């Protein structure tokens, strides 16, 4: 099917003479089709995504907002409108702020070392190496492993009585640590799991950006006597700043949504430990959904959405201020 109209809209197609009397109207019609084609069809091409997004992204978002304004438990047919009551309860709920703190703590503990490590790894790989592809594929392996498998294995490693990590620590005379009991220790254990999965992935993204940095800059810097670290700091990092912004934002969003790691680390305990010492926001939502308290869970979901928007905004502003490019 021809989707492009001819370049000259008035011209008749070969072999199909225009009948007298219908000429001007037909030309108008063709012109209209052409206009529609050039102006309208781009929208038609992007429409499938937006239709799907409306059905599976936008509608749930708006509907969740609607639910959050109600007293809404699944087994009751009546859903009474309560306005912002769910939100005011939420702001006074200690468990909500506890979950917020845990999310931030695990987020910082996992994201910051992860990014530093990823840049360092990418820097190491950004040079002529034998078996380059092998190294790059290896970086991605932890990411393609199922999160469940990762958490199950790491939970064993972090075991109190028979865990590998405590065994290693015992060799240097450290008493066994009950990793899942303490707040700090459980956050550290969960952060390690997140780092294990995502460091390699981010390193690959950084590596791709680094390879776009012109070689001449490094050559010139070497001639000027700049060491490796200086080159990394003064050339590489400023040149890949847009990528860093991207990775920081995606990692932050990812960190806000951590669910599987704490859930499985606590052996399917939706409260994230007896003292909620590692219950994240996503897990707190999940806990309330499993209690079938949909109104409250929706309110938490919206608060989390606001937090993520806020975090993304702050990230954007911070990284915007320190402008990219060489100084």
């Amino acid at each position, binding site marked *: 099917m021809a989707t492009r109209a001819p370049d000259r809209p008035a011209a008749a197609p070969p072999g199909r003479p225009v009948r007298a009397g219908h000429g001007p109207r037909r030309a108008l019609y063709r012109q209209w089709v052409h206009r529609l084609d050039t102006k309208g069809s781009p929208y038609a091409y992007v429409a499938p995504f937006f239709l799907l997004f409306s059905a599976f992204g936008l509608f749930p978002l708006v509907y969740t907002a609607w639910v959050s304004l109600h007293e809404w*438990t*699944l*087994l009751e047919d009546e859903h009474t409108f309560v306005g912002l009551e769910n939100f005011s309860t939420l702001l006074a709920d200690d468990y909500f702020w506890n979950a917020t703190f845990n999310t931030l703590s695990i987020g910082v503990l996992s994201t910051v070392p992860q990014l530093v490590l990823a840049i360092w790894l990418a820097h190491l790989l950004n040079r002529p190496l034998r078996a380059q592809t092998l190294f790059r594929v290896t970086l991605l392996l932890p990411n393609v492993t199922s999160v469940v498998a990762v958490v*199950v294995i790491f*939970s*064993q490693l972090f*075991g*109190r*009585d*028979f865990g590998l990590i405590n065994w290693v620590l015992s060799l240097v005379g450290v008493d066994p640590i*009950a990793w899942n*009991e303490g707040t700090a220790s459980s956050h550290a254990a969960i952060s390690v799991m997140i780092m294990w999965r995502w460091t390699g992935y981010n390193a690959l993204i950084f590596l791709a950006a680094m390879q776009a940095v012109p070689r001449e800059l490094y050559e010139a810097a070497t001639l000027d006597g700049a060491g490796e670290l200086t080159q990394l700091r003064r050339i590489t990092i400023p040149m890949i700043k847009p990528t860093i912004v991207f990775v920081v934002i995606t990692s932050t969003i990812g960190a806000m949504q951590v669910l599987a790691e704490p859930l499985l680390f606590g*052996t*399917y*305990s939706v*409260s994230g430990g*007896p*003292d909620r010492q590692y219950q994240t926001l996503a897990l707190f939502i999940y806990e309330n959904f*499993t*209690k*079938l*308290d949909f109104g409250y869970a929706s309110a938490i979901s919206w608060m989390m959405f606001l937090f993520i928007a806020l975090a993304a905004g702050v990230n954007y502003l911070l990284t915007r201020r320190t402008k990219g490019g060489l100084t």
Partner: protein
Amino acid sequence: MGKLRPLAPMLAAVALTVGAAACGGGGTDTAADAGSGAPAEKIKLTVGLFSDFHFAPLYEEFKKTHPNVEIVERRAQFNDHHTNLVTQLATGAGAADVVAVESGYVATFTPLPDKFHNLKDYGLDKRQGEYLDWKWQQGVSNDGSALLGLGTDVGGLAMCYRPDLFKKAGLPTDRDEVSKLWPTWEQYIETGKKFAAAKVGGAAFTDGSGEHFRAMVEQAPVGYYDDQYNVVAATNPDVRKAFDLSVQMIDAGLSAKLAAFSPPWNTGIAKGSFATMVCPAWKTGTIKDQNPGEGTWDIAAVPGGGGNQGGTHLMLPKQGKHPKEAAALIDLLTSKESQIRLFKEASALPSLPALYDDPAVAEYVNPYFGNAPIGKIFTDAAKSLKPQKVGPKVGDIFKAFGDALQRVEQGKQKPDESWAQALKDIEKIK
């Protein structure tokens, strides 16, 4: 929803030709009714379970009297199965014709008689005389108007212990003598103190305190709910007493501080991190799965006299289009013949006391547990249970107390603070 759906051909493959002759139980009566009508149309029954109940041969038997019925079984993970069922009942679609509901959840559904077919309408109330009374009552709606479920198995309660660790601590190892050590929970704690004093390397007296707390509460005449289904957890002295006894266990250093069913707990079963644990009948399977070795664990009576944890009911959601056939099916699945068969094949303890004197149950010994007469131990426990009213949120309430005890174990809170927080958590449960 990512459910496992074993298909009918699989069931058909289990061509069963043995011992189907005399199915004289309740099954055939209803079967006769179904057969008397016009040539029946082809219908399909779905059965929703949360694990392998070993029902497949019984389906084949059912098809002999109901050739027009095709049975499809589907399974989901334990928690998901029950949460899905709630969702399916609320949205009015998607539930199986026959659903299994475990005893921890059955009280979630008994307040909702309009969501299920009343089994009395299909003549199943005639089975009442066969059942353990408390098991029967669990399947009756809260207002008493309707019969919602028929019981399959029960989970009689015992205490599992390790003779090797007991020997090291200078305690008796024979199961009868061990049972005599602890007729009450106080004496159990005293025994624990002796064990702890002997300082057996690397082993605590027991796994945790939550399951003990649960058993103690379930042995009391009133638990978390009163007769009118009001939550009385905060004021019931028996709950507080169970909590205090559990705290005593922690204070005396008897607990290995391991949460039941966590990976380190599993490892601890095999490696001997603890010497005793509360043991419903089905937990013998859990122990075996960890492969501690034959005879490593043995089974004695539970302190406090009897009890039950777990067990299942079969119910028919109102959405089902073929309640008559479904009722006939659960009648067959819970019949005497079926229950004795499931005891042999799947260690499911029958809920019909007449079977407890059947040699197949009464004389059954388990070689993996030092030839312990588990049939007798567990049925004694099930028989001596005093029934208790159980309300819809019993699982959430138990979790609040379980967490509270773990906070004490981990030294995060003083017992009183922890108790107060548990009560606050329970107030919030809707």
